[in-house]
């Protein structure tokens, strides 16, 4: 894919330093930081990932020692006992075994394993229980789609979704958040390496996971269960904000989109949106039933009478990604196209070319299967729409009005 | 199955032996041991199918939105337990006739061997006919193979068993044909015994299926 700019700024390590890593081998791994590796598992930034790291790091060291011992053993044995010139007819002592030795090297590894087992079970208990600083006042339903993620915030944990974001999840730093992970189509896996291990998102099931970031920051993730054509392009971002900033963000997200003035490009863009995009995309205040001030075709409206309906329920619904990202606060996000492209350049200006190009011909930006096929009348992914260049300009003008740009 | 039973004996036997009794390390003939192994493997096959059925039988009842639909009601209420009990009894009786047939052959009583063979095949066919009747009745009620997860699992499990019964009947009829051509005697009674092993296995599996599918609520 062309012209993708980085999610984090990259500090390139020296080539020599990397070659040094090669020679140090597995032991050196524990020294890698996240510099230049936004997805690394070796730089945990939250309680869960740190607990995992603390558990596995000593095992890496023990395994490294065993590895060196065994390989050195093979090497030493090979050198010491190789058949030397003149020994063509020499025969060693015919040793058949030693039961005590055998029992020894059965029991010792078993004891080492038992030690690891104790730590493993303890960590499993830690990870299964909610930490003390858990936010009890809301949770987030994480939904995998082919090939993007939606995050549905349930304020008050009353079972109704209050607002929804796509590809980016915002959490308060220093506080744990409950996630309920599921999928609308195939199995995906939700993974933010810096914050916690992965958890599969399976249709028809809801898997619990909690997540906590120690400090504010942005943490990249990648779908890790093969989910079809664009699996490799399915990314997501978690942003931890200061708790106060988080509350502000929530208040913003609860606002419906404003309707642009008549006669502006943005207003024409809204009309185009209703005509072309609203079948799959939702904008709060535009095409949700009770809030909509303009005539919207009802077929894409959802029966639910709340403004925020989230993704259509997967059970009983067509097993396809008919739903598309909710765009109400598009401009409050950093990424688009399944978390793959940056919405803005380094100076904070809209990446207009990418946004227009994506609308013009989505297949250039991400492989998808938007056409109906055997067993699937909807297709999966964003289709190429019959839009004129003017319509595309208007649409972008309208999309620019949606949401507040995050402050750097 | 036929191929396993009629497969050649290996030629690698080392020990002296007469034409008839194979001397093997275990004392069990290759053919019989092969059948036992095959049946052991079959246990896992039916184990997988039964587990699938149990999972989906349970799931259908708890599946949100499906609690009171006709789709759900169709599953549990369609069973005609008395009817299936009778056909199960018929199949179990066929195990008895199978035993009688083998023992008759061991006594070189070919007339009775054939009689009981025929009876076994007939009882098996009766069971199959009952299954066909049951399937047609279900489909008429609206519970087809593709109706829901329960029906897919039900037809697959019982269908696989039915296919096993059918193959068993073909084996029995082959044995019958062989006896008519005079090639079945106490000398090779083991062939019939091995066919019997298969037949008993199919019956025992049915007992499990009957309990799991029809009796457990």
């Amino acid at each position, binding site marked *: 894919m062309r012209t993708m700019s980085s999610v984090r700024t990259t500090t390139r390590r020296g080539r020599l330093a990397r070659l040094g890593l090669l020679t140090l081998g597995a032991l050196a791994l524990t020294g890698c930081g996240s510099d230049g590796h936004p997805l690394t598992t070796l730089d945990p930034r939250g309680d869960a990932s740190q607990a995992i790291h603390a558990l596995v790091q000593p095992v890496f060291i023990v395994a490294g020692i065993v590895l060196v011992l065994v390989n050195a053993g093979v090497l030493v044995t090979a050198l010491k006992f190789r058949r030397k010139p003149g020994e063509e007819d020499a025969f060693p002592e015919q040793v058949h075994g030693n039961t005590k030795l055998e029992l020894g090297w059965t029991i010792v590894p078993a004891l080492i394993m038992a030690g690891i*087992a104790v730590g493993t079970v303890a960590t499993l208990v830690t990870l299964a229980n909610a930490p003390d600083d858990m936010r009890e006042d809301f949770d987030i339903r994480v939904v995998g789609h082919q090939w993007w993620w939606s995050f549905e915030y349930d304020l008050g944990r009353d079972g109704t979704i209050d607002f929804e974001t796509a590809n980016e999840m915002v959490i308060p730093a220093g506080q744990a958040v409950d996630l309920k992970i599921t999928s609308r189509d195939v199995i995906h896996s939700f993974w933010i390496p810096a914050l916690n291990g992965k958890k599969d998102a399976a249709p028809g099931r809801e898997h619990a996971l909690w997540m906590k970031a120690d400090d504010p920051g942005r943490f990249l993730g990648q779908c890790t269960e*093969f989910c079809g054509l664009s699996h490799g392009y399915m990314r997501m971002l978690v942003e931890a904000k200061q708790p106060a900033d988080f509350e502000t963000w929530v208040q913003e997200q609860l606002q419906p989109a404003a309707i642009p003035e008549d006669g502006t490009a943005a207003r024409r863009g809204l009309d185009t949106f209703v005509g072309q995009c609203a079948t799959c995309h939702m904008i709060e205040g535009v095409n949700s039933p009770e809030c909509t001030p303009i005539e919207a075709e009802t077929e894409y409206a959802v029966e639910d009478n709340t403004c925020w309906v989230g993704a259509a329920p997967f059970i009983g619904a067509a097993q396809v990604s008919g739903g598309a990202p909710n765009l109400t606060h598009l401009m409050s996000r950093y990424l688009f196209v399944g978390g793959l492209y940056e919405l803005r350049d380094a100076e904070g200006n809209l990446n207009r070319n990418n946004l227009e190009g994506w609308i013009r011909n989505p297949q250039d930006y991400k492989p998808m299967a938007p056409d109906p096929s055997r067993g699937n009348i909807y297709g999966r992914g964003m289709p190429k729409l019959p839009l004129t260049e003017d319509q595309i300009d208007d649409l972008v003008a309208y999309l620019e009005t949606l949401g507040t740009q995050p402050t750097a | 199955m036929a191929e396993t039973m009629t497969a050649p004996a290996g030629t*690698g036997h080392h020990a002296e032996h007469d034409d008839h009794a194979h001397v093997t390390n275990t004392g069990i003939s290759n053919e019989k041991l092969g059948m036992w192994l095959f049946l052991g493997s079959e246990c896992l096959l039916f184990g997988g199918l039964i587990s699938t059925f149990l999972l989906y039988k349970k799931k259908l009842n708890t599946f949100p939105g499906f609690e009171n639909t006709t789709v759900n009601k169709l599953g549990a209420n369609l069973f005609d337990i008395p009817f299936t009990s009778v056909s199960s009894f018929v199949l179990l009786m066929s195990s008895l006739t199978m035993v009688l047939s083998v023992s008759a052959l061991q006594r070189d009583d070919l007339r009775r061997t054939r009689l009981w063979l025929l009876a076994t095949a007939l009882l098996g066919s009766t069971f199959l006919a009952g299954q066909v009747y049951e399937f047609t009745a279900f489909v008429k009620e609206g519970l087809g193979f593709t109706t829901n997860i329960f029906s897919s699992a039900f037809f697959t499990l019982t269908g696989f068993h039915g296919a096993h019964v059918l193959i068993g009947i073909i084996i029995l009829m082959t044995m019958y044909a062989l006896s008519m051509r005079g090639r079945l005697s106490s000398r090779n009674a083991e062939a019939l015994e091995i066919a019997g092993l298969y037949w008993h296995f199919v019956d025992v599996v049915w007992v499990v299926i009957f309990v799991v599918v029809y009796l457990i609520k």
Partner: protein
Amino acid sequence: MALVEREPLALPAGTGAGTAIEPLGVLARPATKTGWRSWVTTVDHKKIGIMYGVTAFFFFLVGGFEALLIRLQLAQPNGSILSADVYNQIYTMHGVTMVFLVIMPMAAAFANYLLPLQIGARDVAFPRLNALSFWVFLAGGLFLNSSWFIGGGGPDCGWFCYAPNSGVTFSPTHGVDFYSVGLQIAGAASLIGSVNLIITVLNMRAPGMSLFRMPVFTWMQLVVQFLLAFSLPVITVALFLLTFDRSFGANFFNVAQGADPLLWQHLFWIFGHPEVYILILPSFGIVSEIIPVMCRKPIYGYPFMVFSGIAIGFMGFGVWAHHMFASGLGPISVAAFSLSTMFIAVPTGVKILNWMATMWGGKILFNTPMLFSAGLVAMFTIGGLSGVTHAIAPADTQQTDTYYIVAHFHYVLFGGALLGLFAGMYFWWPKAFGHMLSDRLGKWHFWITLVGFNLTFGPMHILGLQGMSRRIVTYQPEDGFTLWNRVATLGVFIIAIGVLLFIYNMFHSYRTWKAAGRPNPGPDPWDARSLEWSIPSPTPEHNFDVIPEIHAQDDFWHRKYGEDERGRAVRVAATENVVQKGDAKGVHLPSPSYFPLVMAAGLPFIGYGVIFNRLIAIPGVLLFLVGIFGWAFEPATEPDDHHGDAHGSDGHGGDDHDGAAKATPATEEAPVG
């Protein structure tokens, strides 16, 4: 394919049911020994073993080519060699091919060739079934790969093919249909083969060859065959359910109807984990044969070697859910499977330490087989240790489905299974073909492979821990994955050079030995320990002139060597005095048969019928039935042909239908020539 499909149609007249096949005999007709017909009709376990090996090697080249494409695509960020669609098909077929069409059949090649020899038998228990296994396997492999040409592309669901992504809705081409039906066919082959080999080992051992005198290779293969017999039916069920869903509209994986997407995962891994041991244990067995020979010492701790193999087999059935730590199991199951997985490391560790103890104090000859064996010990250890880190369930949630896992299982399957299989090829090549492979080229092959292998898969540990997911078609420049991916791509081409060198070695060695008329290396070129070395190279048709009487573990060695008062081996007899001449006449062997091939040839048509149009299945079913019918009415052994030189006609040829009811007992046993 063409050969398999057309050949039966060209059956010569008079080969139908009940008619004796015109003598294409392999034993008494030296003229037809090398003809292609002697191969397609053979029931000889050695020829079948060689055919398994050749086929597996062919698929190895196919799967290796797919690996090259994968690495080229990943050599740089935003790679554009392959589209996402094609990439998904290529990596799926790479996995399926390497697991089901390379390592399994290559191990089956060794099992077929060697098991009867190592236990002192003339053939397997059911020679025709053995031929059937091979042809069915070949049919399955070709069927699977035919999806490239007529299926609209290969399967695109990964070798694990998780539901519901494998459903028609999400994978609308026919690729997955070929996966489900093709693996079903290949699985049937393995199942038939496993039953056959188990019975061979349990029932057909030479006198005195008690179970605990069997070579470790035979033991490991026995464990593998049991694993196959009891794990394959589970994947059979899973594949049936998938086929029913895709082709007949069933609902097993239809989540909209309430199906559980984890059902497939459980069924797949209940098979899939034993499968891992099915892939690795044969190589453990091979190495356990080679190390003692090259060290001139018996295997250290034989009973522990055997019992650890059995323990691995049993425990292998109790660890499957460690593939599913991230899939949403409850914490109790996760803890249980985490612990069971840790403890399976113990018997594996026992094996490694026993190999090292065997080497310790030996007089190790570092020729090619020994190098590959030592390479296995060292490289498999790396895979085993990274395996321990996955057993820690919380850590696995960070590692699973990343390149760390890819690194792990390649260290197990390449550094373990494949290095062992190469070791076995160099070791038993003279036994099978009557000439040695060049040791000089072999050593180059080893070192190039070792370097390439570590360059390819070593960096993947780092990539995985840096967060590179599996099965992604590409990555971004900012991810920081570029350097190690380049190294890995460099490594795979070094491996490719090693493979080319091996191919060259095969031709070169044939030229310099056979064609140049160098003398046969003799029955026992390595001064080895097990029975297959007591008979000429290549193995005569009838294996043993006289079935040996076994008095000890490593009986053949003890015929050559005794021990002095300090426990050192002392030669007691010259090798040429204890080996057999291989010149026995008139040993009655099972006759060749067309019918295994005919039966197997029907299966792909039935498969195409299921996928495309039921009508195509009709010729398939007919072929299959002709095969069964012909088989049933054809005696296993033609009573009086093929060895007329020894017996002449003894006049009971009329009763050749006997085999239908009961196997015709083989006329035994050859007088020594």
